[in-house]
């Protein structure tokens, strides 16, 4: 081994703490990139593979009762590759040992042969035998939530009749990756099931002999989705068609897509910031580290080493540090990324996972980090290598300081404080860079932690400000409004508020969206709507009130006219003015007065469901009755829903945020520690001579740590500002038609982010303080500056 290479290894070992601190910051940057991009790509690829292997359909349509021969008509539409008709209905479940009723989506399976589309991935057991009408395959998550296995039974209220169903298998389906019950905000595997039964059994149960209620279509490559949808709508119109829709409007797909988009947004916004911070830090610290080697560089030149050889030596030094960082970051990022992919895979119940970690991610990481390191090192090496050896071997001339304020003004300060001030002002760029580095870690923390504030705000808004009901019932069919007073007489019901939901298409100019219109009575108090200033509003008797998200998409304001096309009952197209814009974060919502909805449908006072306020103590009694009510198609419970919402977020977001926050802490520590450490190398002699003059350890430490304290404090407000901007960008990235994330950062979060950074600074200060305590006083008398 060459002497220079041996020197390299020893230098790395000598500076091991600093090397570790820099490498860790780099590792943090690399890890976020590898983790976020890898997890996103893997999940995306997993979904695509899953869809393809299990033939997830492209277009879906529901009807009340369509004759089976229509399937052939649909198959003849140009661009259609495959058609499968099914019966899809909801049912209330009564499960032993569970007082709360559950809801099930019942889906028919062909009597003979395999499913053509939306195929099941059987986990356990077999498919239902058409000759046994009580057999059902359930989704695995539901079975797991209840500890069910093939052979177990539960009750279902199918079209008003209570029946015992026997589980013969468990399965996964590309159609219900994200299985969301009616009115639920998060999947609840205990309370929402998918049950696949034989077509024959369902035809009999729902009186749909020779008819179907749902059709799925697979398109040929290059087929026009819009045209096929139009043709299907035309065919189904007479049979209670509710408007065909494409994948992007399919619930499971849309939610999954929104989740993946969020992951992608995270991958697009945070890793570049981490990587940038890391690169910046490396550039700064390695540059200064090399500058400290000035005398050694002079010596090597004096010994006859070529400038090139010396430069290579130091570039190897910085590249070695970068390599350590990239390796740690690459391994950690891959490990965390696999973990996160598995976590999401479990959450979505993917039958398998495709891990896709392209070489390009690692290449980018290596390129950015090693590049930044080498650039930082090269700049410093070059400035020294250019000097004649005799000059380089001498210490740099004493730095010229300037007086920046009149003496009188400074009289109140001690000389040590003046030293801090002058040192900062003498190196304004360096101080600014340090401030910037620390502020970035504040910003990254803020941009990670604010998610909790925004979610809390959404929870408060959704569950405590607007949807304050305890339960929501959805009927199997529209019922006369009188049913509301029947509901009020049920045990434990304190109040019942009618709802009429109708699926419609809303159009403004060229923009069109399928949304449900929710009809509410004037003065609705359980489920309220709030305007954009969060004040409860009464929906105007006439007109249409979209949520702000929908209004943005349609490009409408109060006073504009939108066209509404009903997708249920007899098709009607009417022009309606927008009379209010409503605040809403989840989904595309729109509201109308309930009487106006009924008028739109040309029907009398009808309701499709009701919101209930419940006396908690009589809830079991109520649930027992609801389970036996033929008119109830599904029931949603706000409290359970909220709990689920929190749990799911805890599972997904907390882990991701914790990872990012931890990495931000590594950066904060890295910036402060490296700043302090380099300062100590540069000024150790100065500090030691003060110790010789009789200054105590603490007095001397103050000169260095006081400066860091000033810079750290100065970085906080800047960090808050940068953090707000990053959080804003993140929120923009997270927007989808299913969610709008409000940008909420509480003072507590600002304080937390600041405290974490201050703590990281304090820890590095303590480590450096120990070194200051050990300064060699005698060496000072010997060595020259």
């Amino acid at each position, binding site marked *: 081994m060459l002497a220079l290479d041996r020197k390299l290894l020893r230098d790395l070992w000598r500076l091991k703490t600093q090397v570790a601190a820099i490498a860790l910051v780099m590792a943090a940057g690399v890890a976020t990139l590898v983790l976020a991009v890898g997890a996103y790509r893997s999940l995306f690829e997993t979904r695509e593979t899953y869809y393809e292997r299990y033939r997830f359909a492209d277009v879906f349509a529901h009807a009340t009762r369509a004759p089976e021969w229509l399937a052939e008509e649909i198959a003849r539409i140009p661009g259609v590759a495959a058609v499968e008709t099914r019966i899809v209905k909801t049912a209330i479940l009564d499960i032993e040992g569970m007082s709360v009723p559950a809801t099930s989506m019942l889906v028919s399976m062909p009597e003979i042969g395999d499913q053509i589309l939306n195929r099941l991935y059987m986990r356990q057991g077999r498919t239902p035998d058409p000759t046994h009408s009580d057999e059902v395959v359930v989704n695995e998550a539901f079975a797991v939530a209840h500890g069910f296995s093939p052979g177990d039974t539960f009750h279902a209220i199918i079209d008003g009749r209570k029946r015992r169903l026997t589980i013969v298998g468990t399965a996964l389906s590309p159609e219900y990756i994200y299985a969301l019950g009616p009115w639920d905000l998060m999947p609840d595997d205990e309370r929402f099931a998918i049950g696949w039964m034989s077509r024959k059994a369902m035809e009999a149960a729902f009186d749909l002999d020779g008819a179907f209620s749902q059709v799925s279509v697979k398109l040929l490559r290059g087929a026009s989705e819009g045209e096929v949808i139009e043709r299907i709508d035309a065919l189904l119109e007479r049979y209670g068609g509710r408007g065909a829709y494409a994948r992007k409007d399919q619930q499971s797909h849309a939610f999954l897509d929104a989740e993946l988009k969020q992951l992608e947004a995270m991958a697009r916004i945070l890793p570049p910031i981490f990587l940038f911070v890391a690169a910046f830090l490396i550039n700064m610290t390695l540059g200064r580290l090399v500058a400290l080697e000035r005398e050694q560089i002079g010596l090597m030149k004096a010994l006859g080493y070529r400038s090139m050889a010396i430069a290579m030596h130091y570039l190897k030094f910085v590249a070695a540090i970068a390599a350590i960082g990239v390796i740690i970051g690459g391994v950690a990022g891959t490990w965390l990324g696999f973990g996160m992919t598995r976590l999401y895979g479990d959450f979505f119940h993917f039958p398998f996972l495709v891990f896709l970690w392209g070489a390009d991610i690692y290449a980018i990481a290596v390129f950015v980090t090693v590049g930044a390191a080498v650039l930082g090192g090269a700049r410093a090496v070059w400035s020294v290598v250019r000097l004649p050896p005799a000059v380089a071997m001498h210490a740099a001339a004493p730095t010229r300081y300037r*007086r920046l304020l009149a003496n009188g003004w400074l009289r109140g300060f001690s000389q040590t404080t003046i030293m801090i001030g002058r040192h900062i002002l003498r190196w304004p760029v360096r101080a600014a860079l340090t401030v910037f580095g620390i502020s970035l870690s504040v910003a990254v923390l803020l941009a990670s932690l604010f998610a909790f504030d925004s979610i809390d705000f959404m929870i408060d808004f959704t569950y405590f400000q607007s949807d304050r009901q305890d339960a929501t019932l959805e009927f199997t069919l529209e019922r006369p409004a009188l049913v509301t007073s029947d509901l009020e007489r049920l045990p434990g019901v304190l109040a019942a508020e009618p709802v009429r939901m109708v699926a419609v298409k809303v159009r403004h100019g060229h923009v069109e969206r399928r949304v449900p219109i929710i009809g509410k009575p004037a003065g609705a108090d359980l489920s309220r709507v709030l305007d954009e200033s969060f004040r409860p509003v009464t929906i105007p008797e006439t007109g249409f009130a979209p949520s702000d998200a929908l209004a943005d998409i349609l490009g409408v304001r109060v006073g504009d006219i939108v066209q509404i096309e009903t997708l249920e009952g007899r098709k009607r197209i009417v022009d309606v003015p927008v009379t209010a814009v409503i605040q809403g974060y989840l989904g595309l919502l729109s509201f109308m007065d309930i009487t106006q909805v009924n008028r739109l449908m040309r029907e009398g006072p009808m309701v499709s469901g009701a919101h209930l306020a419940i006396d908690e103590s009589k809830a079991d009694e109520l649930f027992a009755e609801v389970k036996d009510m033929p008119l109830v198609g599904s029931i949603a419970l706000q409290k359970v829903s909220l709990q689920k919402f929190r749990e799911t977020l805890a599972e997904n977001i907390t882990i991701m945020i914790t990872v990012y926050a931890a990495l931000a802490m590594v950066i904060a520590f890295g910036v402060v520690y490296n700043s302090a450490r380099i300062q100590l190398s540069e000024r150790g002699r100065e500090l030691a001579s003060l110790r*010789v*003059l009789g200054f105590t350890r603490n007095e001397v430490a103050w000169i260095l740590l006081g400066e860091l304290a000033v810079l750290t404090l100065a970085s906080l407000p800047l960090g808050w500002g940068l953090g707000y901007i990053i959080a804003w960008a993140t929120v923009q990235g997270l927007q989808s038609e299913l969610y709008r994330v409000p940008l909420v950062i509480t003072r507590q979060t600002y304080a937390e982010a600041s405290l974490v950074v201050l703590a990281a600074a304090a820890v590095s200060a303590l480590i450096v303080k120990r070194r200051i305590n050990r300064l060699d006083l005698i060496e000072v008398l010997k060595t020259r500056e």
Partner: protein
Amino acid sequence: MGKPVFDVDGLTKVYRTGEVEVHALRGVDMEIDEGEFLVLLGPSGSGKSTLLNILGGLDQATAGTVMFRDIELTAMDERELTLYRREYIGFVFQFYNLVPSLTARENVSLVTEIATDPMRPEEALDMVGLADRLEHFPAQLSGGEQQRVAIARAIAKRPKVLFCDEPTGALDSKTGVRVLEALVAVNQDLGTTTAVITHNVAIGDIAHRVVHFADGKVARIDVNETRRAASEISW
């Protein structure tokens, strides 16, 4: 001459670096009197710097005792040594060790701020002939001027003892003489006990006594019957 400021008895210092033991001092006995101007001469590694470091409270002895007046220096811990340096001792280094970010006046203030009965910084700088350089930063001063600022900084707190390690080592003869003049003036005007370490035999002429070191021991002590003025010597 008055009573001894330092009473050194059997002072031994052994450095252990890895497996090697270096005997820097092998039982030194000597006294330094109040107000005395002492020059310590000897080759590198003869132990003079080690003695000065221990007397100055920068290092601890392996064996033997040092009495500073009635206090046993060799029994002090790190904190007490810091206070001792702060209270009684002034240092002048070969390479000045000024704080580059402070002006001449501020460098002196650095010490007067933590001392109990200091002189004004201007007064101290006047004593070394730098009354007109108060507001200059180290980078704006010549080597000799920087060293005189260092002397002013060392004497401004009215130390009992002034230790100088090769104070002229980095200076040319003419400038060195000016620095020595300042040291002698301080010794005479303030009565500060002064010990100067040097390789430079010529400087011995300005001392009351010259202590010769060799192999970690005092080889011999010469007493100058007649001292020469600093301006009379050169090298």
